[in-house]
């Protein structure tokens, strides 16, 4: 039996409890084991990070990827904004993404001669999150005082698009050129459905509140993805866009770095990879019929990772999230909006939150994302009064604890959950790199189911997913 994988450590943040209060991790529970993703799916691509070279491999891959990019439009003295997003810093501890950003700066400076290179790092709903990462990874010093977090309530700028005026964050676009520096982690597939994944930050991280609300309230669960493309296609953004650089992820780690002057070329490549590799892990997780989920990661409730997949996705894997013929995932804000006052959906056909999750233990997770929906639909136990109070004080989670109970310790919570649910399957969302920390019965189940899942994705599901996104099925992955 494999020992547990060392999880991502708690991180000091204004959005989470003091890491000193996290006295036990899910992986520390007696009898826990782990499964490696490459044991489940041997065809997963080899990773460059984590690895023996550390982030040096990311630097080298970034330099190689950028070697094929045209930077001739950037002249000495030109201002350049490298646009980044908070998500990248949550991947494998964040150092790989930080190193890609540092390398982009170094290469642009060397090849163009310009010194005015800024980092503008967007956020989701935790407006100081990237400020914390900028400090943690020393990026302000690296960018010579020109790194800053930008938030959706900051001063805006109107952007004229094919669907009318949308609004960006002024600071994102206050340079002559922009470089879109992102990652391909599938992450919120319940929202973006792997449609224009590479383009999404133009409608989100770099966008004002009006634009983000357009995405989540005005267009519908699939059409919403056009918001980002509309902004990216605008003459304003096109006049500034220089190139893009992506940290390409698979569920087991960083696979490569991709850079291109054509964002849509990157988009097509990562769409294929994302559907194939994340599609397999999510389809496998959908085979679990009962389990206890333990949240144990430095991020808000929905963004806790297991096997490269976030908890919000696990809440929806009872439905094929990649199949665009399914209009509503079990969790998305469109879905959440459609539950009436009696707690039932307003229309037929709204799928339930994954009924396999018999209980959720909130051992360590952050505030800063409206999460009451999860506690309303899944029995939830929060470990420790300090964490419960943190949720009550969060304006996005004022009512979370109305639906959750507290336990004095992780052990007590797990003891209760095992007895109350009757399941022996435990899945820990702790970001364990390259695998999942699980209880032995769940490890056996996953190993038994994985080969058939892989076959089904390759032969049946992947061709359908790609066709729905206008992509040729036969093009091989560049990995």
């Amino acid at each position, binding site marked *: 039996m494999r020992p547990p994988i060392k999880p991502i450590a708690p991180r000091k943040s204004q959005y989470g409890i003091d890491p000193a209060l996290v006295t036990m991790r899910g992986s520390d529970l007696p009898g826990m084991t782990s499964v490696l993703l490459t044991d489940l799916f041997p065809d997963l691509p080899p990773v460059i990070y984590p690895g023996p070279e550390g982030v040096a491999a990311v630097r080298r891959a970034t330099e190689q990827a950028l070697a094929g990019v045209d930077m001739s439009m950037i002249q000495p003295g030109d201002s350049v904004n490298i646009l980044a997003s908070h998500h990248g810093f949550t991947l494998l501890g964040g150092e790989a993404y930080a190193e890609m950003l540092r390398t982009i700066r170094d290469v642009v400076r060397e090849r163009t001669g310009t010194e005015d290179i800024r980092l503008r790092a967007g956020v989701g709903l935790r407006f100081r999150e990237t400020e914390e990462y900028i400090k943690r990874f020393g990026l302000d010093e690296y960018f010579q005082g020109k790194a800053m977090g930008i938030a959706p309530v900051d001063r805006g700028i109107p952007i004229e698009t094919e669907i009318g005026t949308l609004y960006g964050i002024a600071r994102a676009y206050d340079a002559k050129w922009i470089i879109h520096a992102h990652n391909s982690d599938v992450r919120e597939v319940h929202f973006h459905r792997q449609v224009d994944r590479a383009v999404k930050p133009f409608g989100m991280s770099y966008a004002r509140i009006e634009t983000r609300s357009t995405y989540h309230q005005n267009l519908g669960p*699939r059409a919403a993805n056009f918001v980002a493309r509309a902004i990216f296609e605008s003459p304003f953004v096109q006049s500034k866009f220089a190139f893009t650089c992506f940290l390409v992820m698979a569920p087991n780690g960083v696979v490569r770095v991709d850079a291109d002057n054509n964002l849509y070329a990157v988009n097509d490549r990562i769409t294929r990879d994302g559907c194939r590799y994340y599609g397999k892990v999510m389809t496998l997780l959908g085979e679990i019929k009962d389990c206890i989920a333990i949240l144990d990661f430095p991020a808000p409730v929905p963004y806790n990772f297991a096997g490269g997949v976030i908890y919000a996705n696990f809440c929806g894997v009872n439905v094929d999230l990649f199949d665009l013929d399914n209009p509503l995932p079990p969790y998305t804000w469109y879905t959440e909006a459609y539950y009436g006052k009696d707690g039932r959906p307003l229309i037929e056909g709204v799928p339930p939150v994954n009924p396999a999750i018999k209980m959720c233990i909130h051992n360590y997770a952050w505030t800063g994302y409206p999460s009451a929906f999860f506690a309303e639909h899944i029995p939830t136990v929060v470990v420790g009064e300090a964490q419960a109070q943190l949720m009550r004080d969060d304006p996005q989670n004022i009512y979370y604890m109305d639906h959750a109970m507290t336990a004095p310790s992780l052990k007590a919570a797990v003891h209760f959950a095992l007895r109350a649910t009757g399941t022996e399957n435990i899945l820990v969302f702790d970001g364990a790199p390259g695998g999942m920390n699980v209880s032995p019965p769940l490890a056996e189940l996953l190993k038994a189911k994985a080969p058939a899942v892989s076959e089904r994705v390759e032969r049946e599901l992947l061709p359908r997913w790609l066709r729905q996104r206008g992509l040729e099925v036969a093009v091989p992955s560049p990995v």
Partner: protein
Amino acid sequence: MRLVNLLAELIEEKCTGCGICVKVCPTLSMEMVPNPNPEGPKRIVAIHAETCVGCWTCEQRCPFEALRMVRRPEPYTVRVPVEEVDRQEVDALCRKARLNPEQVVCFCTGTRAEEVAAAILKGYRTPEEISRHTGVRTGCKVECTQPILRLLEAAEIPLVPTLKDGWQLYGRTITAWEVPEAVKAKYASRGFYFDDDIALLNRIVSAAGSRKGG
């Protein structure tokens, strides 16, 4: 509906009078006033405790970390009672804005379209007044902005920024029903499913709802 349990508090010695908190406050509860302290900046922020709902926006955006959140000794709840407004008018306004009265528009507070509509029908004419009285736009401050603007527009109330040079809200944006046919055709093969989503949204708008609970 929203529980108001916190209040913004100024750390005077850190305030430089930059005014960013005033520009971002969703309830217009911050105001620049002359600083009585001659040693400090000429102007300093004053917090109107009676309208501050404790949303953290000022604390999150102050470049000088001059604001902090403190617990209110006596928390209270803001809510516009839908039952005090004509039900048919509430329904009509929501459906004109292409929202189901029961659909949740604010995921942080669980506030439904009908309460925002009731607030408008009771006479609140700006997003800031609506936020003060219903609590919407005071959680994440992001996701519920368009339904508020759609409901105000449906009530034929123009969006006129209360605060000159404020960054509170710039304007309503497109809805699914307004996407030009040429755009739909141009991008038809890329998985956006424009018309299928319109059909889904239409089902929601016209759904009867449960009308149970509050």
